[in-house]
């Protein structure tokens, strides 16, 4: 049997520089499974790439086109496409894994049975950043000012609610600075930062916006170690253009960096050296490549789980959904996969599709040209995040006429 896994990648368009490494990582991991293990439990994975160009319309077309081929799980890879697909995929009973993006409140498995967004949501990330800041400031954020520089789209607006709640809780002042797509010109934004002199700046950026922001921040002499991005503002592409100046820039992360993991040995032996690497093979070890890989890893594990539950390797999307819901990838399993300590342990449940909500802070070392994790994985502020998720998902349930299912596990 074949396991059909579509990859809605975007190797073209304004976000291609980010889309390419992710797509490569995602593809290479499955290639590795096929080449090294002969697939998952004997079933080969068939990766169907479909180019979306980060465009919703094309995303939907890709969905409809690949759906018929027996697609088992979708990684929509854009907040816009995720929102699109949530109702459709739910109707079609195909699981979606929007890993660390998409609709945050989909973490509520009762309302969104088919959508998974572990290991952490934007709201988790926001609270982790605030926690980190609090730690830096010795625990007290009263009277501090934190600015959010965000991509002026659904994606960028996600953390606002949470940050507002957090500012109430901690007594800091929140300053919102939207940046329009594509974000090449951010003079006004950074002049405002210069004038208002916030103590910290956090960023929900994407694409060219990230690197311009980091450059501009350096130009207005904003201290880099007080500038913290979400995990999508944390790739090499974003910091390298700013050169030395980017040194010290921070971001949240939910997986390890670099290629210092046993799996890279296997990848080299079974994939790269056989000339099977996706793309031009220049991306292994980069942040987004690793992220593609971790997404593929969880998908593979979920399928394995599904086979275990249903006792067959002829999977249907619904079975894979069950696999996701029963997913449990702990340290030991990661070790076995050749990815020790690569990411946070994940245990999904019927009610919780959002995972542990852990994130570490990584920091850019411009001299060595590499990211380093500088903290342990920090848990999100569940006290703030959970009620928000509850509220938002229930609002959706009401609007869409969904009766939340009961989860008694």
């Amino acid at each position, binding site marked *: 049997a074949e396991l059909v896994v579509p990859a809605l990648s975007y*190797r*073209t*368009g*304004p976000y*291609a*520089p980010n889309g*390419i490494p992710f797509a490569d990582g995602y593809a290479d991991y499955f290639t590795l499974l096929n080449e090294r293990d002969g697939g998952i439990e004997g079933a080969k994975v068939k990766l169907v790439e479909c180019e979306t160009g980060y465009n919703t319309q094309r995303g939907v077309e890709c969905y409809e086109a690949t759906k018929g081929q027996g697609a088992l799980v979708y990684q929509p890879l854009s907040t816009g496409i995720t929102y699109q697909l949530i109702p459709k995929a739910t109707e079609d009973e195909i699981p979606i894994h929007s890993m660390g993006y998409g609709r945050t409140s989909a973490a509520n498995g009762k309302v969104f049975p088919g959508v998974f967004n572990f290991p952490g949501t934007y709201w988790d990330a926001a609270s982790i950043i605030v926690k980190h800041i609090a730690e830096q400031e010795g625990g007290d954020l009263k009277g501090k000012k934190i600015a959010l520089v965000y991509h*002026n789209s659904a994606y960028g607006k996600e953390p606002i609610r949470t940050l507002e709640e957090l500012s109430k809780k901690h007594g800091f002042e929140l300053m*919102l*600075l*939207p*940046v*329009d797509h*594509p*974000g*090449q*010109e951010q*003079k*006004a*934004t950074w*002049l*405002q930062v*210069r*004038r208002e002199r916030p103590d910290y700046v956090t960023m929900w950026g994407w*694409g*060219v916006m990230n*690197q*311009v922001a980091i*450059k501009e921040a*350096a*130009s*207005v*002499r904003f201290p880099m170690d007080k500038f913290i991005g979400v995990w999508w503002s944390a790739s090499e*592409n974003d910091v*390298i*253009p700013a050169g030395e*100046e980017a040194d010290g820039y921070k971001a949240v992360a939910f997986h390890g960096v670099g290629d210092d993991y046993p799996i890279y040995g296997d990848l080299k032996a079974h994939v790269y050296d056989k000339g099977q690497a996706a793309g*031009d093979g*220049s991306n292994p070890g980069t942040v987004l490549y690793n992220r593609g890989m971790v997404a593929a890893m969880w998908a593979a594990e979920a399928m394995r789980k599904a086979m275990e539950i249903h006792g067959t390797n002829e999977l249907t999307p619904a079975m894979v959904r069950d696999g996701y819901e029963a997913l449990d990838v702990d340290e030991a399993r990661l070790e076995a996969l050749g990815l020790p300590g690569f990411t946070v342990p994940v245990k999904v449940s019927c009610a919780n599709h959002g995972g542990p909500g852990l994130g570490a802070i990584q920091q850019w070392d411009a001299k060595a040209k590499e990211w380093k994790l500088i903290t342990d994985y920090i848990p999100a502020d569940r006290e703030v995040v959970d009620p928000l998720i509850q509220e938002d998902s229930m609002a959706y349930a009401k609007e869409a006429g969904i009766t939340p299912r009961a989860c008694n596990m």
Partner: protein
Amino acid sequence: MLFFIETVISGLLAGVMYALVALGFVLIFKASEIFNFAQGVMCLFAALTLAGLILGYTPFAEILHVLGLPAAWMPELPLWLAIPLTMAVMVGLALLIERLILRHLVNQEPIILFMATIGLAYVLEGVGDLMWGSDVKPLDIGLPSGASDWMLDRFDIYVEKLEVAAAVIATVLVILLTLFSQYTRIGRALRAVADDHQAALSVGISLRTIWVIVWSIAGFVALVAGVMWGAKSGVQFSLSLIALKALPVLILGGFTSIPGAIVGGLIIGVGEKLAEIYLGPFIGGALENWFAYVVALLFLLVRPQGLFGERLIERV
């Protein structure tokens, strides 16, 4: 007050950056009444080519790879070789555009030509990607970058060095181009072509030559703009979207006026920065984009042909 001055300066300099892109539009419009939507992509294409050559990318590597041909044989070229080569590519492009598109669309409605340039934009985008790949390419050709420390320490004013350089270059360009179009034989022919293709043909102006010249110059301007913007934000697809930033500048200054591009750029630059900073907090930020257009629109209501554009001749 200091902050206000700072904002204005930033606005002026940002405006110059827009003007650089707008210049390319003006040139082509002036010479053929073609509203060249591909100008933005031409900036991208020029910058991509330059960056690709400097960084030693092999053109069409992806295709060569698929065909099983060697796909990594280009050396990293030095700047003094890469720039003329890029210019040669742009001239070649101009030739091709004339040969394959313009020649067949003589005497057509402006909107048809406009559409053709959008088609061209697609083609260039696709070819650019095929040729050089779609990853971000840093473009470092030794232009100054970052804030001017001197200004910052001395006056506490934040000025981007790159943009000052851009301002100087833009000024020189504008002066040269104005002289060229106003006082040379070719310049006059350019304007004649814009008015009436057929009549221009009938007096012996070769549309082909004129178009190749103009598109080559526009290619050169695109290269300059592409280099400036590429140095600022890396060379990648988004570069082509700066065209949208240039449009309000264009209508404000007037489609046919080279100095208008600069003046328009300055007004738009300052206007949008002031709006974002002083108005943004009250009505929600990220209003730069539409604000630029609204500023332009307001000017147009007073002068429908832009500040320096040629008057629309309405007679019966």
